[in-house]
């Protein structure tokens, strides 16, 4: 059970763009290096990648909301 935390403060996004599906849904397999979301920081988009493999449970931070560094973004089962 590993939480994915935000490396930076910024705005967290579940989707690569507003018209796409979220990067991950509950039950999806997650491999090391998979992108689970984007952090927009100072007009730059940074991919948030999984550092451990597992099964995706849910996003812990809502889409398009401000987050702080260290905030839990997603939970893995």
């Amino acid at each position, binding site marked *: 059970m590993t939480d994915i935390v935000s490396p*930076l*403060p*910024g*705005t967290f996004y579940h989707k690569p763009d507003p018209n796409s599906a979220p990067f991950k849904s509950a039950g999806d397999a997650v491999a090391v290096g998979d992108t689970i979301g984007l952090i927009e*920081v*100072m*007009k*730059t988009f*940074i991919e948030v990648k999984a550092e451990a493999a597992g099964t995706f449970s849910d996003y812990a931070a809502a889409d*398009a909301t*401000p987050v702080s560094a260290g905030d839990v973004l997603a939970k893995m089962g």
Partner: protein
Amino acid sequence: MAIETLFIANRGEIAVRIIRAAQSLGIKTVQAYSEADAEMLAVRLADEAVCVGPAPAAKSYLNISAVVAAAKDAGANAVHPGYGFLAENADFARAVEDAGMIFVGPKPETIERMGDKVAARIAAKEAGVPTVPGSDGRISADEALSVADEIGYPVMIKAAAGGGGRGIRIAQDAAELARLAPQARAEAEAAFGDGGLYLEKVIVNPRHIEVQILGDGTGAAVHCYERECSLQRRRQKVWEEAPAFGLPDATREAMCNAAVALAEAVNYRGAGTIEYLYDAAADEFYFIEMNTRIQVEHPVTEMITGLDLVAIMLRIAGGETLPVTQDQITCTGHAIEVRLNAEDPLMQFLPFPGKVASLSIPEGEGLRFDHFLYEGYQIPPFYDSLLGKMIVHAPTREAAIDLMAETLKDLEIGGLKTTTPLHLALAADPGVRAGDFHTQWLEPWLDAGNLTATDAA
């Protein structure tokens, strides 16, 4: 109608700059801020401050109805848009005027006309300003191929409705253009709801030189000489100078006179900038676009002319005619500005929205630091990374570069990563010293590893 209370619809260093200009004229200031910006310096300096919405710019600084309502409720009779955000949004300018306030800038029609690449190019041509060979109007993806055959490759293609560097594609030959044109059309359609394209010849390795102008809306305009802004990364300027070095006098005069002709032709009101590409080998210049606002790099012009451009904007907006004549505007010495961003240049310019732990700013003859920092200030992550601009003025370009290097070594911004190491490396580079660069120079220079941790130490 003179400005009595000014609403500042912007943030960061330019908000501070506008407040200082307003205060010098005895104008009361009301600062807009988002929920994330309650602690910013401009809020502390202004007479009053009003929250205009949540952190995301789309819900605050870009929210036209919220900004106009806040300005009106605060009793402002004028709104300064700064740069970025709503500064070149004709709908915003119109909404401010419709609410009975002064928009500090050109008329909405001028913003609209000069914001459309095709309309701006036509206006430039009519005023006798040289333009890059290209399509004479908006064209379809199919027409792009025949136009490109006439003017020769390489060509660039972009959305007719778009601004800045967004969506620009370069094709080296017909096959590449045939592949890129439909993509450009689709992107233009998606981004602007308008699939019209614009195509022009690529000037290889040009310099970016721009002329500052001032107009009072009566058809009278003056220039305040030119700026050299060729050092760019990802189409963002990082280091700017005034005047441009190595420019033949006749070329400088032609550039400045053409800028005045265009400003006069559109009855320009306020401060504006005519941007050119300069082909140094051919000694030819071409109009790219007009920016209908104050620019980030305006301080280098202020240093060489002694003018306060922001104060002049406010006076013109308040109904005065041009307060200076062309022969009163002189160019003395050489000025350089560098943009200090909250980014780590040694980590691919990763943004670094940290807290200012300590701040020590060098002061002295020829030095100016436009910024919005104070000790203990937490830089919010929601907006661009510009922290401030170090500006120096010296008798010669060589002396200005030396002064910039000394000043940056003495500047201490604790707790943050900034782009200072980049500027120190540029100041020490023989190519920069020799003025041997162009708009395509900086990125390969970075890719070649010219900026290393050792240099920065």
